[in-house]
């Protein structure tokens, strides 16, 4: 080109040919990406997503996350961003048509199909930003002192890939339906579809066709037993995004390009491989391992001994034994008789046979002096575990402790809660109805314990008294307090209280 106007600066030396065209696509993508990221819906969605993530991660899993659960928790938040990106990417593609610049832009050097590629690439920074957020969220969980387990890169990719997929869908939709109403309508449809499918059972391969597959169970399983085809699902999402992207390019005039046609074939293969491989069924090896860990966990356990207690945990939960030991020592220190020195075994157990779709209870351990601890920790799980330890120290085994219906319940509950920083609060938290009066069921990893109204009254009064004073009485009357059939009235009397006024009937 010649500099036609005297005094005008030289025209930029744009390299001509395919290289310049490719460069223009990236420059266009950057331009569009900047605008996309500054659009109000995307900004609001990002603010909502980041705010919600920060708020939630502060207290998630009570500070004791299992990273094989924490990775999945990164997946739903990005959908909000993805929907906003869908809307705005669609809007950006339709901009020229909406404002009548198409006739002008049609004679510019960058052809429509390359402009479509620019729009497709413009959603990538949003996906990358979400990747950073996902990484930050996961790193935050992983850096918590109580974190255990292993995350899956496939699970962590699901969020960013969903954003990419939704953004690409917005571009494709604009190439299919040149109406600004199409994207909002699709959004409404997707929301209704999500609400409808949320009520469907967890089983079935169809659910894996959705970008994000949530689990309804609160159980935490060892990371190698989850049975979630996360890597295949990530491949499926990436392939699907590529398919839709190339379809948009083809609709914009790129169909005649051999590279695009070959890309479509490759993307379809990727998608199909991912879709078939993520069929949702659990491999026989995983099923066998789940059965083994559920029925004979001792074959998998790694055991360590601390202060006369043996802690047997699944390999990933090794770091948790120190937290368990702290609770055990607190309870032991308040007990009398031989209990402080009696060898105990804390054994971690989980019901893994139903995978993440079940919430089955664990039966109480039948072996004497064995306490069950679950795979989750923190929050209510701590006083629940303390109750389990106290129950075994008082009765000898979990089965008996679960069936308690006499004055020993008072001793069990006081032992469990007296060493806690806020005993009354923990009393409320371990009771199913969150009360501190009347009868209630005490939540447990295994068999729940029943408290009568009389038990509650006595325990509450004991917790309000100085701990050392009560501890001396517990230790002094240990044999009688832990004798079967001891009544609540007698237990109260031994502990220096009046007989309770409230009813003493087990639930």
């Amino acid at each position, binding site marked *: 080109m010649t500099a*036609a106007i005297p005094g005008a600066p030289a*025209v930029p030396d*744009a390299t*001509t040919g395919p290289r310049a065209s490719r*460069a223009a696509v990236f420059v266009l993508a950057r*331009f569009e990406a900047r605008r996309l990221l500054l659009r109000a819906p995307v900004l609001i969605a990002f603010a909502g997503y980041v705010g919600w993530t920060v708020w939630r991660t502060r207290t998630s899993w009570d500070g004791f996350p299992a990273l094989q659960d924490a990775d999945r928790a990164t997946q739903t938040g990005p959908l909000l961003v993805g929907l906003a990106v869908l809307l705005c990417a669609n809007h950006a593609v339709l901009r020229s048509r909406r404002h009548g610049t198409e006739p*002008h832009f049609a*004679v510019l050097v960058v052809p429509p199909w390359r402009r479509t590629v620019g729009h497709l690439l413009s959603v990538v920074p949003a996906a990358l930003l979400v990747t950073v957020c996902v990484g930050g969220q996961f790193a935050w969980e992983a850096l918590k002192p109580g974190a255990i387990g292993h995350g899956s890169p496939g699970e962590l990719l699901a969020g960013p890939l969903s954003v990419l997929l939704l953004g690409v869908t917005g571009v494709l939709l604009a190439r299919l339906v040149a109406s600004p109403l199409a994207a909002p309508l699709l959004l409404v449809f997707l929301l209704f579809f999500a609400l409808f499918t949320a009520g469907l059972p967890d089983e079935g391969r169809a659910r894996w066709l959705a970008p994000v597959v949530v689990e309804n169970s609160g159980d935490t399983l060892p990371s190698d037993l989850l049975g979630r085809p996360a890597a295949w699902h990530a491949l499926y999402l990436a392939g699907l995004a590529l398919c839709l992207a190339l379809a948009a390019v083809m609709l914009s005039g790129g169909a005649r390009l051999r590279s695009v046609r070959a890309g479509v074939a490759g993307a379809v293969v990727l998608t199909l491989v991912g879709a078939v491989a993520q069929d949702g069924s659990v491999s026989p090896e995983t099923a066998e391992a789940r059965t083994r860990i559920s029925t004979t966990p001792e074959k998998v356990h790694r055991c360590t001994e601390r202060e006369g207690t043996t802690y047997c945990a699944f390999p990933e939960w090794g770091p948790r034994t120190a937290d368990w030991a702290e609770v055990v020592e607190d309870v032991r220190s308040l007990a009398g008789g031989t209990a402080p020195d009696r060898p105990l075994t804390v054994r971690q157990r989980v019901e893994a046979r139903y995978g993440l779709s079940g919430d089955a209870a664990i039966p109480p351990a039948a072996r004497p002096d064995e306490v069950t601890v679950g795979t989750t920790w923190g929050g209510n799980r701590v006083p629940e575990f303390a109750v389990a330890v106290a129950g075994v120290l008082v009765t000898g085994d979990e089965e008996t402790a679960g069936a308690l219906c006499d004055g020993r319940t008072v001793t069990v509950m006081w032992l469990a809660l007296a060493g806690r920083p806020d005993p009354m609060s923990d009393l409320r938290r371990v009771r199913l109805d969150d009360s501190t009066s009347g009868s209630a069921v005490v939540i447990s990893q295994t068999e729940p314990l029943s408290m009568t109204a009389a038990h509650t009254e006595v325990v509450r009064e004991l917790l309000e008294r100085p701990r050392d004073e009560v501890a001396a009485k517990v230790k002094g009357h240990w044999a009688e307090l832990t004798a079967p059939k001891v009544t609540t009235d007698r237990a109260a009397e031994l502990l220096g209280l009046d007989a309770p006024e409230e009813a003493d009937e087990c639930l």
Partner: protein
Amino acid sequence: MTCTVSASGLSLHYGGTRALDDVSLRLSAGVTGLLGPNGAGKTTLLRVLATAVPADRGSFTVLGHDPGTSHGRREVRRRLGYLPQTPGFHPDFTAFEFVDYVAILKELTDRAARHREVRRVLDEVGLTEVRGKHIRMLSGGMRQRVALAAALVGDPAFLVLDEPTVGLDPEQRMRFRELIAHAGEGRTVLLSTHQTEDVAMLCHRVVVLAGGTVRFDGTPAELTARAAGRVWSSTERDPGAKAGWRTGLGTFRNVGDPPAGADLLEPTLEDGYLLTLDGTDAEVAA
């Protein structure tokens, strides 16, 4: 003068309508005016030359590149600036962003150089002060100048302007004339217009199109000369005139074949244009 654009036998039909019929042109540096009544095929010809639509028959080259091939079309577009008849704008873009966007679509990929170029063209059309304003905040005249800046960005060798002064007030038209005259220095500008004064003041050549065919191709002086001895003054409208109207002086200005002894007047380019259209199917607004 070196020929920049050369068109030969261009024809285009829309259904049964003949939009262009065997149009041949040779354009060189400077401003060439394209005159013609509504429906003459001006916009169609500009769209063909701007590679927006292909011709059914015929061929043309721009600076030696044939837009009939994919490579040639790309090369033509690299050298083309196009201001459509009703340019669209992205109202939520600033003037700078809009021209920058067009520059990107013209493959100006180096950010610093592109931004320099965008600032240059906005300065050239006098929009430096408002370049950061959203287009929705700009007046119609300013928007038209944004469109001209978008056409000028990348310093195209061939500039196609489709009725750029439509809807502008006289002051804005004057400003636009300056801009177009400036743009025509050293590059080929094809200016479609209904304004014969614009052609008279700006163009070194003029092409008259009617019914899809070229009726005249020459200098403005030659077009004006067509009316020499065919414009006269009378106290009443001469029934034999092709066109006639009352002037501000109260006399009638007639164009056509004057009666013997008529009071002849100095012809204008518009007179030559009207006489050139005489006998065509086109409606002559006089």
